[in-house]
């Protein structure tokens, strides 16, 4: 019921950043490389906040989030291409594509969730990794054509027999080519806002409470009648659906998309955003995703050393953030909002 001021701040900052960038863009204050990165940044931000729902709020490590991005990218883009003539307005076509992408990614999330959510900890993590790799292998070998007679699908080689009048959209390892770039920064901004509303409102409802209760103590959650399978699935599927539309947004910013773009390294990249931004902290994820997407670009002057420097920065940031002194400092900072009478209580708890 209570409105968290932190959520409010997140909305304000996102809207502010969008407005500032729009003004800058209108005045020609953005370099062309930065302009080209606006949509990918939006996609990565949505990827980061959606993964944060799984990792930060639900507390399960997922190493295959790029798989859902892949599902959304391929099926969303295919939808947009198939509708090219039927729906001439790009914005409407993009909206439909993003919704279809979210839907298919949600279905993938549900199917994967059935086995995955029965496992725990590192075993769950490795199975999400495995599913990510399987999705990559499937899209690398998938052929999908659309013609007057409908949709044709084949695996490994093109046996779809798509009619001359139709179009072979997904071409195995070549992915999808000739995509119309209909993704826009404004669409990306709207998708970020929708993701934030969905996640914040979900977290501030009975579902969010139950999901966080499962994270904090799954045995206690079961003992008070919480259906842990249902809520884990809810978080996982929501996270997958948002990742799916982020994938479609991302893909339709380029003229081609291939399955290898959404590999294990991409999943890890997004996980880095989430951990650096802080588990369960959506604003942190947004900032981390934006900064770390721009960082390699900003480091371009030092060309070949930039990825090395990126790696060093990553390590140094983790070491600093977890240094006992820094942690104590932040804990003290956080404690001020709580009661001050628990000093003795903590010691007592240790003893039992």
């Amino acid at each position, binding site marked *: 019921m209570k409105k968290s001021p932190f959520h409010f701040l997140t909305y304000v900052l996102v809207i502010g950043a969008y407005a500032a960038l729009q003004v800058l863009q209108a005045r020609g204050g953005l370099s062309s490389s930065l302009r080209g990165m606006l949509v990918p940044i939006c996609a990565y931000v949505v990827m980061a906040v959606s993964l944060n729902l799984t*990792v930060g709020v639900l507390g399960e*490590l997922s190493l295959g989030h790029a798989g859902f991005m892949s599902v959304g990218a391929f099926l969303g883009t295919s939808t947009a291409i198939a509708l090219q003539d039927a729906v001439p307005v790009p914005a409407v076509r993009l909206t439909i594509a993003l919704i279809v992408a979210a839907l298919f990614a949600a279905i993938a999330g549900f199917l994967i969730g059935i*086995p995955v959510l*029965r*496992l*725990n900890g*590192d*075993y769950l*993590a*490795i*199975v999400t*990794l*495995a*599913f990510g*790799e*399987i999705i990559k*292998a*499937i899209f*690398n*070998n998938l052929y999908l054509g659309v013609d007057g007679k409908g949709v044709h699908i084949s*695996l*490994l080689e093109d046996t779809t027999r798509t009619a001359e009048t139709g179009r072979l959209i997904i071409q195995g*390892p070549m992915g999808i080519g000739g995509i119309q770039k209909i993704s826009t920064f404004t669409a990306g901004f709207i998708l970020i806002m929708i993701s934030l509303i969905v996640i914040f409102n979900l977290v501030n409802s009975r579902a969010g409470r139950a999901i966080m209760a499962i994270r904090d103590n799954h*045995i206690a959650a079961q003992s008070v009648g919480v259906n842990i399978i249902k809520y884990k699935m809810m978080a996982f599927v929501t996270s997958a659906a948002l990742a799916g539309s982020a994938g479609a947004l991302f893909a339709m910013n380029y003229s081609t998309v291939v399955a290898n773009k959404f590999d*294990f390294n991409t999943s*890890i990249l997004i*996980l*880095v955003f989430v*951990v*650096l931004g802080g*588990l369960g902290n959506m604003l942190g994820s947004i900032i981390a995703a934006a900064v770390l997407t721009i960082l390699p670009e900003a480091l371009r002057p030092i060309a*070949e*050393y930039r*990825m*090395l420097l*990126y*790696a*060093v920065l*990553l*390590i140094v940031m*983790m*070491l600093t*953030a*977890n*240094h*006992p002194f820094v942690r104590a400092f932040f804990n003290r900072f956080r404690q001020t909002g709580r009661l001050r009478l628990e000093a003795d209580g903590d010691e007592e708890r240790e003893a039992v």
Partner: protein
Amino acid sequence: MNFIIQFVNSLTSGGGAYQFLNHILNGISLGSVYAIIALGYTMVYGIAKMLNFAHGDVIMVGAYVCFYTFGALRLPGPLAPLLAVCAAAAVCTLLGVTIEKLAYKPLRSAPSLAVLITAIGVSYFLQNAALLLWSSSPKVFPNFFVLRTVDASGETAVLRSIQFGSLSISFVTIVTIVSCIVIMLALTWFTGRTKMGKAMRACSEDKAAAQLMGIDVNATISLTFAIGSGLAAIAGALLCSAYPNLVPTTGSMPGIKAFTAAVFGGIGSIPGAFLGGLLLGVLEIFAKAYISVQLSDAVVFAVLIIVLLVKPTGLLGRTIREKV
């Protein structure tokens, strides 16, 4: 359905039997490499409770060191490869211990995700350092395991394999399988019989209790990283002898596969890593031969998922009951 029929046909036809045997041997050989890498993963996981994602890149470093040492040493006979592997093992051992000291040790009480991200950072670091040092152009790894014979006419012939009828087994395969078995037996002896090995097991059960028993926990963890990284160097040399294309990302995929193998067998268990590695290798080669080269990884991962659903802690993993 098609590939099942194909599979059965190839088994029953005459030449198929040799082919089948050949696939098994190749599978065991690849699996042995996975097993050696997985042993490093599983030992580090057992003691430090962390997924050391940089492990795969230590393999790559080992392979490069091996490549350059071998090129620099112009020694005859088996001495050069032996020295090259030793040099690689020494460098990787040092590298592993250094990584642990600098990057992981300060995070011992930090949340496990922080350690995971740091390991990813180390992995990026090693890959990009290799890129700067050795460039992205692939190096063709030499085949160490050849027999040079001089026949009656004075011609030298280079033998890469021995023939058993129509079955040919390459020396790399033999050396790989033998090394894996030796390493496995040595590790079993080490963890079961020696004082240091027992200290290692004690630390992986309960670090605080081990410390109270007078075990130097920090030294034991360093030792584990040293052994794991040394093994990675050996794995790197063996892997590149069989698949001689060496680039800075050579270690990533075998790293992920070996990690999968460790989980497959039950992470934390040494025989589990051995079994998981072998099974994964055989599975991969079979999937490549009888199903589809492109989908072989998907098949391997699908089997992993099924195994984990039936046995949620891997083949030989212990089920830990949470105390309520």
